[in-house]
């Protein structure tokens, strides 16, 4: 850090008006500065956070230190420690972030939300962010002495911390059967069941790095699971798309350009003869395009389950990965035994072989899909394409050759 921090000069800088952060109140999008000011009038920590933010903009650098080890008793994750480089001006004893585990599908009762706000206003800065990209409620800015009590009060409201660090992160699922006609699996129940089953992994870091599970009810993938989750569970079907020909004709009569839809089918699995729509289900890749276009006429099949994809992530050791299919179809039914057994085998293998901060997708990339499949006992199947139109080449092992 090359910046020389002179506290007296920084204090003088704050006297220069107007502040740069005033700019963020302008324009069509609501900024967060108005909320900052409202809370800063009541809370000292929030006022100090705002002063530090202004100085960060003026000096074009962050004024937060790197790292910080803040936990509540019994947990290793859930609180992200942050300390100010200028405790004389910014928060003097930390401004830590709480991740609070969101309920399945982000359904809240308003009285619970109010209770969370009250706890946070009492112990923290009063500022929150719904939701972070992991899906948790993000509570921004609590100082070290208040951390434990704040946590205990959140527990009393009925909320628990989410994941941070090398843990199973808070899961994420779409609204599924609660709201959506396309839900092919009960995303909410699966979310809740896995969250409760793996509490230990969620709160206490075990692994080389983080592990994310996201559950989408259908291939529309509204929680963007395949690009972000180490394990994406995406609802799908393995029989035939249900077609109501009468409704198809109604769509056409009312002006729908069906030729356009047929032409846009990515695998050219559809045909329209002016009276009847045909779908070659063997060629269908479950992209949902036609179903989204004609929701009254087309429905997913009746034999439903999920496709599992492994390794979606943003750039860290390697470049960004999109999920890699490991199980083309699995029935998703309570108590989810098959899925849990697979998960646990994956974790064991990753924990045994993974390097520090290596995501499971990166480990598969380093050691090969073949190694992974052997370790977890899955068969190699053609659906495991690495990139579209790319053969993954499952090689023989030396001992298998004569």
């Amino acid at each position, binding site marked *: 850090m090359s910046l020389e921090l002179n506290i007296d000069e920084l204090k003088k800088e704050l006297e220069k008006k107007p502040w740069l952060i005033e700019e963020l109140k302008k324009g069509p999008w609501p900024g967060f500065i108005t909320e900052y000011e409202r809370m800063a009038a009541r809370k000292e920590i929030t006022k100090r956070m705002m002063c530090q933010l202004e100085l960060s903009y003026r000096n074009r650098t962050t004024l937060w230190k*790197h*790292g*910080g*080890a*803040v*936990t509540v*008793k*019994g*947990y*290793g994750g859930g609180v*992200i*420690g942050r*300390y100010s480089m200028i405790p004389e001006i910014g928060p003097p*004893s*930390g401004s830590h*972030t709480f991740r609070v585990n969101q309920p399945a599908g982000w359904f809240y009762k308003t009285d619970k939300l109010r209770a969370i706000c009250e706890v946070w206003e009492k112990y923290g800065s009063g500022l929150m962010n719904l939701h972070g990209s992991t899906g948790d409620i993000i509570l921004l800015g609590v100082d*070290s002495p208040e951390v434990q009590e704040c946590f205990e009060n959140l527990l009393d409201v009925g909320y628990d911390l989410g994941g*941070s*660090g*090398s843990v199973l992160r808070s899961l994420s699922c779409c609204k599924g059967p609660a709201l959506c006609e396309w839900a092919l699996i009960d995303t909410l129940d699966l979310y809740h069941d896995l969250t409760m089953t793996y509490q*230990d992994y969620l709160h*206490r*870091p*075990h*692994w*080389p790095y983080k592990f994310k599970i996201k559950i989408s009810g259908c291939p529309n993938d509204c929680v963007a699971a395949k690009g972000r989750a180490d394990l994406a569970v995406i609802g799908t079907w393995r029989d035939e798309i249900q077609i109501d020909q009468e409704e198809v004709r109604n769509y056409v009569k009312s002006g729908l350009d069906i030729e356009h839809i047929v032409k846009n089918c990515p695998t050219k699995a559809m045909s329209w003869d002016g009276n009847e729509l045909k779908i070659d289900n063997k060629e269908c890749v479950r992209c949902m395009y036609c179903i989204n276009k004609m929701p009254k006429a087309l429905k997913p099949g009746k034999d439903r389950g999920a496709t599992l994809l492994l390794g979606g992530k943003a750039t860290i050791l390697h470049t960004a990965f999109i999920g890699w299919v490991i199980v083309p179809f699995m029935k998703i039914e309570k108590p989810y035994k098959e899925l849990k057994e697979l998960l646990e085998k994956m974790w064991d293998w990753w*924990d*045994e072989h993974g390097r*520090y*901060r290596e995501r499971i997708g990166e480990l598969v990339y380093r050691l090969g899909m073949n190694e992974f499949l052997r370790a977890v006992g899955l068969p190699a199947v053609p659906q495991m394409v690495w990139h579209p139109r790319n053969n993954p080449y499952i090689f023989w092992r030396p001992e298998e050759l004569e």
Partner: protein
Amino acid sequence: MPEIEFKGQKYIVDEDGFLQEPEKWSPELAEHMAKIYEGIDKLTDEHWKVINFLRDYFKKYGIAPPIRILCKTTGFSLQKIYELFPSGPANGACKVAGLPKPTGCV
């Protein structure tokens, strides 16, 4: 930097209580740190098994061991380690053992 005082001597620690001068660590100081940070009245043989392993590993490799290795070597489950050190292996056990703060990550 904050300081803690023990038997008339001052020890520099960081905001989270991690010892900044590792050469000053002693078993008596560990007892004291366990008391003030973890609320442990008296370190038992089980606590010392964890602390000694952490220190040995650190001396050998220059880093704190992965959780898997800590559990395997001591024979304690992770849950057991949290029972021994309520703030966990990193923020609790490593701190008492006088190891530097593990570089955390969100």
